[in-house]
């Protein structure tokens, strides 16, 4: 199991002006770390830097404290499975899987056996003589994964492994990646723009915006303790109330709210839609609102509320039950103190 450490890693693209600057991150051994962020945040650049497919302008990259910056990709032991599979179309499935072993000079019989074994693990036993064109997108993705795993890499790099799959296959592939990673205990880095995918797959998430690390932590941290409004928004946060902290209360245009965590420079409080409850009477952290919209989302209901005291303030709540309130009817919402996030 390998610890990957990025120290002040910088990569600049002179043509576009985009850069990843002084990036620091320690990727723990034998776990899955997701590099999450919107398009152009630098996550794929980081993955290619780790793979050795790009060279940094400065900084260091170590595998188990040994610098690999000047080690070429083919000797680095960091194998990448690409977003669009990149299964070699002129080779059979078996030859594709055995490709890395062939490059290492492994004898034909041995590499064929190893390819068969790993194909069984990815539930493609008996597919070795087929051409990639005869496989579905999901099967090709599994071939790509098998091709990477068979070489027993120090680090497994997955670039948007689920983005080309439909919902059902995503679920299957996600479970497969998770189980194989647990079985092989390979340090794995997954690049994704999908926060749900990152939360389900990863043990840790590194959230990137504009080539910079904004937050690093366990998936639950991003819901419970986002470090900024941008992070909260990226993780589905939609309710933000502007104000400022006065002693232990957060003063807003719709009243004072008791908060459990105090952050002096805070300018917003936020609450996730699922944490907003209906209140029967005015107590601490309640807010008078009027229902603007009610939408059935399949497995839950989504409500959009307008604050009575400040019509520009719109809050969204979700509930698994129908609240039986008609549009434009008044209601009282409770924003529990322990669920309020101060940003």
């Amino acid at each position, binding site marked *: 199991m390998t610890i990957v450490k990025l120290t002040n890693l910088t990569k600049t693209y002179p043509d576009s002006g985009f850069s990843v600057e002084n990036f620091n991150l320690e990727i723990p051994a034998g776990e899955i770390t997701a590099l999450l962020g919107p398009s152009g945040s630098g996550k794929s650049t980081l993955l*290619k830097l780790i*793979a*050795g*497919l790009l060279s940094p302008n400065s900084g260091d990259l170590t595998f188990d404290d040994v610098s690999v910056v000047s080690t*070429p*990709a*083919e*000797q680095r032991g*960091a*194998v*990448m499975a*690409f977003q*669009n599979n*990149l299964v*070699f179309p*002129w080779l059979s499935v078996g030859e594709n899987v055995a*490709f*890395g072993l*062939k*490059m*290492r000079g492994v004898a034909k019989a041995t590499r064929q056996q190893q390819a068969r074994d790993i194909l069984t693990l990815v539930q493609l036993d008996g597919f070795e003589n087929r051409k990639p064109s005869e496989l579905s997108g999901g099967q090709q993705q599994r071939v790509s994964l098998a*091709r*990477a795993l068979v*070489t027993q890499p120090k680090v497994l*790099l997955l670039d948007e492994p689920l983005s080309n799959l439909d919902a059902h296959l995503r679920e299957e592939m996600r479970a497969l990646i998770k189980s194989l990673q647990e079985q092989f205990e390979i340090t794995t880095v997954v690049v994704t723009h999908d926060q749900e995918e990152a939360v389900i797959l990863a043990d840790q998430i590194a959230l990137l915006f504009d080539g910079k690390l904004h937050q690093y932590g366990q998936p639950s941290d991003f819901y419970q303790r986002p470090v900024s409004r941008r992070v909260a928004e990226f993780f589905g946060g939609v309710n933000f109330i502007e104000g400022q902290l006065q002693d232990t209360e957060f003063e807003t245009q719709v009243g004072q709210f008791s908060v459990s965590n105090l952050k002096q420079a805070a300018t917003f409080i936020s609450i996730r839609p699922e944490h907003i409850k209906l209140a029967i009477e005015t107590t601490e952290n309640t807010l008078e609102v009027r229902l603007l919209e009610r939408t059935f989302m399949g497995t839950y209901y989504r409500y959009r509320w307008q604050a009575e005291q400040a019509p520009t303030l719109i809050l969204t709540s979700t509930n698994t039950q129908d609240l039986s309130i008609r549009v434009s009817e008044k209601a009282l919402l409770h924003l529990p103190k322990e669920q309020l996030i101060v940003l």
Partner: protein
Amino acid sequence: MLFGGGLLLALAQSFGYLPIIGKTDFSLVAWQSIFQQTEFWQSLGLTLWIGFASTVLSTVLAIVCALLLRRQFRGKKAVTFLFQLNIPIPHIVGAIGILLLFSQSGLLARLANLAGMINDPAQFPALVNDRYAIGIIAEYIWKETCFIGTIVLATLQSVGEDYENAAASLGATRWQRFRYVTLPLIMPSVLTASILVFAFAFGAFEIPFLLGRRFPSALSVLAWRSYTDTNLALRPEAMAMSLFIALVSTGMILLYMTLSRKLVRQ
């Protein structure tokens, strides 16, 4: 219809059917005659040499050039433009250029003489109208390298470097990436382009006529000489030779395709 008609007429004439001189019977005399001529076999050997040498050398050079031109470097646009400049220039211009430069009365011979490297321009190595058809092959390489290279470059640019990156990540060295990834990727376009070049080099007439020796000459020149001979009785032989060129050309193309595909799959 025009092509089919011409082919049928050539076929009929090769079997001795030439009513203009009163021959209306079909026979294998012309075919037997050409196969018995030493000059024919020597011409065939020379033509095969010209076809293969030109094709292989142009293809190898074209792949190298395309790989270099794919990279990012200062002045890439200008270099690519210069590389592709040959495409619209006719072969005949290239042949004249080769004559002016490389013949024993050409510019290089005179420069070598002036520089004291040789005592007389005639001492300059025979590169034109020579035994090994160097002038002919050089002209084909000059013209066809940019043709094949342009096609290969377009293919390389369209497939990008992702497959090579995937191979590098799986442990393939630079050479292995070229051998096992780049080559199979470009092989369809390399095959198509080089087959065209081979077919052209094997059957073309004007360059061997201008830059080749009189004996042995390329098959096309030999066929042309028979065809234009005042003795019309030689015309069936000319037709037999022309058809033989077409047959060998087709056979060689099939063999070349089979061998190349096999090589790539290994």
